């Protein structure tokens, strides 16, 4: 079959149209992605409101709460304690050389303990909770979705948010401060043990400097932030589980996304809450924090 002759001008026009179509497609893709993200955020917000509604609407059942609390709180304690202990020691290892060069090694306790109670304790406890509990919650609820157990619950007139999300949400919200306290305590202990036993820093100076530079506000700031971290982990993980895709792959993706999204959200919340709490601190203490040097 003979083909029609193609002029150079029509080729150029075709190429220009092809490029503009390509750009339009990319813009449309970007818009669709943005809309998806906005819809997902809205979906999580509605999910959070339904969870809050069921917390207030009905008395919680002890036989549902206790297993969730045990799973979230008690079983997470050892791993949080262990990581807290090591992070305290690592802080001592990494800070010692710089402080020694300035002749300030006796003030090591203040920087280790300040970092721990303000940042590392709460973030570490939240990260361990997201990894150990968040992924498991998403996988468990995802499996229940895939095997129609959530549908079965609804078909019996029971609300899955009340039975499955509220106990996990309350467990994370109420128990993450205790895990944070454990991470803080073990971190402080680890930092001290390494500083005193290995680096030979004097016991009296270590604790005297810690007392001088770390106050109750620093400790409470970490505890305050942990409530937000716990709520974020529970909501994000349960939401991923509830909206899990089909099959083993869908459940696996839900578990992975639960951890990744929880972790990103923990860091985002940490940044913004940290900025806001510093302003609160400055408001009550306009003279600012005590200077280390």
């Amino acid at each position, binding site marked *: 079959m003979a083909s029609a002759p193609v002029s150079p001008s029509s080729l150029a026009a075709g190429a220009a149209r092809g490029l503009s179509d390509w750009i339009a497609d990319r813009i449309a893709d970007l818009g669709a992605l943005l809309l998806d993200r906005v819809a997902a955020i809205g979906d999580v917000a509605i999910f959070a409101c339904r969870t809050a509604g069921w917390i207030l609407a009905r008395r919680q059942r002890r036989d549902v709460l206790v297993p969730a609390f045990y799973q979230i709180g008690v079983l997470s304690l050892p791993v949080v304690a262990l990581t807290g202990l090591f992070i305290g020691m690592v802080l001592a290892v990494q800070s010692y050389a710089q402080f020694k060069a300035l002749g300030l090694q006796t003030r090591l306790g203040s920087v280790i303990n300040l970092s721990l109670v303000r940042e590392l304790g709460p973030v570490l406890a939240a990260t361990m909770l997201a990894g150990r509990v968040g992924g498991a919650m998403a996988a468990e609820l995802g499996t229940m979705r895939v095997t*129609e157990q959530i*549908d079965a619950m609804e*078909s*019996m007139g*029971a*609300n899955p948010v009340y039975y499955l999300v509220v106990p996990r949400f309350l467990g994370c919200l109420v128990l993450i401060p205790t895990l944070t306290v454990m991470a803080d305590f073990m971190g402080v202990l680890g930092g001290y043990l390494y500083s005193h036993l290995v680096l030979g820093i004097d016991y009296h100076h270590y604790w005297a400097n810690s007392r001088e530079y770390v106050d109750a506000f620093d400790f409470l700031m970490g505890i305050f932030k942990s409530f937000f971290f716990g709520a974020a982990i529970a909501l994000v993980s349960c939401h991923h589980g509830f909206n899990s895709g089909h099959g083993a792959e869908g459940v696996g993706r839900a578990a992975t996304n639960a951890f990744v999204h929880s972790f990103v959200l923990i860091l985002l919340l940490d940044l913004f809450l940290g900025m806001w709490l510093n302003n609160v601190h400055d408001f009550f203490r306009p003279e600012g924090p005590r200077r280390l040097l």
Partner: protein
Amino acid sequence: MPRVPAAPPRPDPAPGSTVPPMLSVEGLSVRFGRQGVLRDITLSIPAGETLVILGESGCGKTVLLKCMIGLIRPTVGTVRFEGQSLARQGERALAHLRTRYGFVFQGAALFDSLSIADNIAFPLREHTRLAAAEIGAIVDELLAEVGLPPTVKHKKPVELSGGMRKRAGLARALALDPPLVLYDEPTTGLDPIMSDVINELILRVKGRGRVTSVVVTHDMHTARKVADRIVMLHPLSRLAADAPQIVFNGTPADLDHSRDPRIRQFIEGRAGNRLTELRDAAALAAGEGAA
């Protein structure tokens, strides 16, 4: 006697007036994104009837069953239970309405974390104020009714065979003595003897008062044994744009005498030229993907 108090009974209908059917589906269509699954389905199921919904895999039978209990919201159309539209119910009202349904899931959908006894007791603990001893007695009674030994009470669902799980799922669905029971593929995955045991149980459940049943299946033996009426659905993807999706609505005897080639192919279980069609469609899709 239902174990959950029902809505106040309506007065007896005046002579000449019509009693609403137990369940009705009016002009129901369901789409998932661009994919249509059900189109303009209208059905009416009177109290006491056992309706079997037949059709090939993927024709939308399970979607229709889940629409009937409000687990899937139809894109268009209405489902009414005893004259009340499910879409107009609030969350709590719908939950209360669902206590009058029993739903037997294809894979039983027993809660993995609970024992069999706790699974069966779940709706009783959720919706009644019965004492633990009374709930225990009902659980024992239900286990005996579906032919499960008391030794399974403390076992987890994963420790049971497929047939035992299905029977435990049926016992849980019957816990609140519902007037309407929906069965999703009740015999799929079971050996012929256990399949017939399930069929017998469906007939026994029907015998408990005036229980209305809707059974979704592609098992012709089940359909012939339990159905008062059979409805057959055809997949939308194989239908012309304006053709009705319900290709048969009648008694089992009428189904056997039907001359519609689509119905004959299904009830005789013939592949016909289906494999060639499927291979052509796959090749076409692969060609479009490559282009």
